[in-house]
């Protein structure tokens, strides 16, 4: 079953009494346990797409379904990882991760177990009682990912999660996410403007046009990744050196560039 479905989604914005189209007939399907990256020029509405799947915003027309059910509002079946982490600064690492579970009637034993599992999964052992401001950006984003993973959501919605991190940390987190996807595959919608990141992480990359955003092209990375055995390489930079990777990346770059040049006129 398809986990996330955008069905002819349109979105208008109102400003000064005028109506601006932001999204124009977006149709996209993310299959169960599939990792789809959405790339596009800034302002194209990719974050709006994610916020619709999260239930923070509603389409002007069309439908967004998760697990076959139309999205009507935010909920823990669709966990979000925000660019700015959005951890609760007054709660410890452990309490941040526990926050969502405490909204449900999860027995205390099971809750402890799942939190410990999420902490292990994200390499946060020893930081349980630390507060977010005591951690680096990369560690904070690990906590945010753990907070989302621990809910065992139908879909993980990641909104430029590594956008606020420095380049080195970013690479480490990308490798970490690939490792996670192997250990514990999830349905992921991943927003980014970094083309390499999209190609490295995703099963498929969806390219959007400039505003009003449409899906311009969807590229299947998975088949190439398998055919060229990217997974033999542990490190991001080794994968990024492969000819097949470079080829894909350049293709997406060109596709995006057309949008940018067109946008500047």
């Amino acid at each position, binding site marked *: 079953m398809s986990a996330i479905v955008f069905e002819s989604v349109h979105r208008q914005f109102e400003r000064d009494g005028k109506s601006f189209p932001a999204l124009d007939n977006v149709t996209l399907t993310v299959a169960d346990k599939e990792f789809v990256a959405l790339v596009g020029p800034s302002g194209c509405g990719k974050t709006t797409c994610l916020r619709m799947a999260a239930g923070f915003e509603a389409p002007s027309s069309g439908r967004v379904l998760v697990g076959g059910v139309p999205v009507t509002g*935010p*909920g823990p079946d669709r966990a*979000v990882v925000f660019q700015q982490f*959005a951890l609760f600064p007054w709660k410890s690492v452990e309490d941040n991760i526990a926050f969502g579970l405490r909204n449900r009637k999860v027995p205390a034993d099971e809750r402890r177990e799942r939190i410990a599992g999420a902490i292990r999964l994200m390499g946060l052992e020893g930081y349980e009682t630390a507060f977010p401001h005591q951690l680096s950006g990369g560690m904070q984003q690990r906590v945010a990912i753990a907070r989302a993973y621990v809910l065992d959501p139908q879909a993980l919605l990641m909104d430029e999660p590594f956008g606020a991190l420095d380049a080195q940390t970013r690479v480490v987190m990308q490798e970490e996410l690939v490792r996670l996807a192997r250990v514990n595959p999830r349905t992921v919608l991943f927003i980014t403007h970094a083309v390499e990141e999209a190609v490295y992480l995703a099963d498929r990359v969806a390219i959007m046009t400039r505003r009003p955003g449409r899906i311009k092209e969807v590229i299947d990375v998975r088949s190439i990744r398998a055919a060229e055995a990217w997974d033999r390489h542990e490190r991001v930079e080794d994968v990024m050196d492969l000819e097949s990777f470079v080829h894909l990346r350049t293709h997406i770059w060109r596709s995006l560039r057309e949008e940018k040049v067109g946008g500047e006129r």
Partner: protein
Amino acid sequence: MTADARPPSAAQTVGLGAVGLALFVGIWLALTLSGIVPRQFLPTPIDVLTRTFELLAHPFAGATLPVHVLSSFERYAYGFLLAAAIGVPLGLLMGRFSWLNDIVTPVFDGLRFIAPIAWVPFAALWFGTGIGGPIMIIFSGAFPPCLINAYRGARFVDRNYIEAAQMLGTRNMRTILEVLLPASFPSIIAGLRVGAGIGWQSLVGAELIVASAGVGYMMVQGQSNISTPTVVAGMIAIGIVGLLIDVLLRRLETHVRRRRGLA
């Protein structure tokens, strides 16, 4: 001449503060002892000091100075706590639900510029000389900052926190108590500080109508007895207690900010 860019050390700060105080007292001494200002208009610092020590041990207007301070503080504590207990939750809810804000704002804005002392006639009429009058006046001074700051804290809360709570499946009540309240806490505590200050300042006005005890009452009695040193002793007591309240709340504020990594 080069400007000294280094910030003064702690010892320097204390030293300079002492210089300011010494100058103040020195000018006061000079003016009163020289007779430039007659003693019946302004007592000398020595008179005030002597009187203050007297008041510590000997009752005036029915009680010693510490007892007057304590009974003032009791009224003040009720008034201030009531203001905080109503103002903070109401402000938070107004920040969360705009319809409530729309209901409360016109009434609140219409009342908040009325000085606490303007309520004295009604406080006397409604409560007589009981404890209710002063509580009402202190409340009217402390309430607006409590409400406004809680409102601003909740209204301008980082949307990310609310959305994070929502996507984690958090109900309204828990969102308010465990997200909105702590997220607004720095703003709330700043409001409590301002409210505590204004409430304490309103005290003397509040005690104009009290018949038994309190610093304000003691000062009024001092005035009727033409004992200016008693009045100044009361002023000093008010100043010191007010300062202590502020220091305490400032500590709390620093503590909260440090825990958040804001300081």
